[in-house]
């Protein structure tokens, strides 16, 4: 197996996978925590309103605040069910 390992250098290692997953997750988590304190509450309220009309899963509504120059952009994503 060790010999095989010597020649399979191009295959993605598990450490590389760990790094990639962590970078995505942590950048997401940092964005949330740098946002204003009301963001989680706003997300909860919006979810409640959407749910009055469409049956969506909790994790299908995401909200984020991005800064673009001197303006802030509130981005709301709602994934609607197929039917």
């Amino acid at each position, binding site marked *: 197996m*060790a010999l095989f390992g010597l020649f399979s250098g191009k295959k993605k290692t598990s450490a590389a996978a*760990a790094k990639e997953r962590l970078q995505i997750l*942590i950048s997401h*988590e*940092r964005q949330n925590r740098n946002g204003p304190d009301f963001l989680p509450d706003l997300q909860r309220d919006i979810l409640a309103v959407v749910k009055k009309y469409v049956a969506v899963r909790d994790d299908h509504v995401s909200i984020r605040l991005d800064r673009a120059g001197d303006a802030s952009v509130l981005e709301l994503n709602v994934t609607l069910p197929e039917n």
Partner: protein
Amino acid sequence: MATIVTVTSGKGGVGKTTSSAAIAAGLAQAGHRTVVIDFDVGLRNLDLIMGVERRVVFDFVSVIAGEATLNQALIQDKRLENLSILAASQTKDKDALTEEGVGQVLDQLAEMGFEYIVCDSPAGIERGATMALHFADHAVIVTNPEVSSVRDSDRILGILQSKSKRAKEGGKVHEHLLITRYDPARVENGEMLSKEDVCDILAVKLIGVIPESKSVLKASNTGVPVILDDDADAGLAYSDAVARFLGEDRPMRFVTPKKQGLFSRILGGGD
């Protein structure tokens, strides 16, 4: 003015207590009057790692509660005259650590002439941990090269940057990354995050890399901080980290796999 150094991580079992004992002993060895405090109220263990478990009469919480004076509760290390230990309570619950009470004890330690106050944080983000973070001047973030540990470390960084006393006063806690339980052979095989990977992700300055080492268990078995074992790779790596903390420039050691013969490598002896 005392400098408060908090050893923290979020995740449990990554090496905070081992590191707190080593760093405190290292600072004392370097000639600085140092006290190390166990913030893990209810689950004290620093006393065991320091080898003073039979000398604990009063503790951190009994001082805050006014049941003992600080002088009664401080345990003088028998090996290093510059080093004292303040144990955590075994019985009281962690709400006993009030911000006012902890602040008073830290002030009093500073008045007594301690230069460094090393705080061994419990795992999690509850009271004991947030108290230890709150007063930090420096934070040593102990991280294992493993996904959940790295993620938890990042959460702790978030708390330091928003909720610590320094952050609230518009300043910044000095952050240092200490990677522990590092296995260079597994890193080389792509089975473990490398020190560069962890630094990239967390974006904190690396103060040391402590190898996975049998010497750590031996040290805890006997109640001697591993930094006092001159034959131990982990002990030497901790000495380097403390020297860097004190401003010295030292190359990283024990970060490449131990040399092996070609024969054992072919047979897959890399583990």
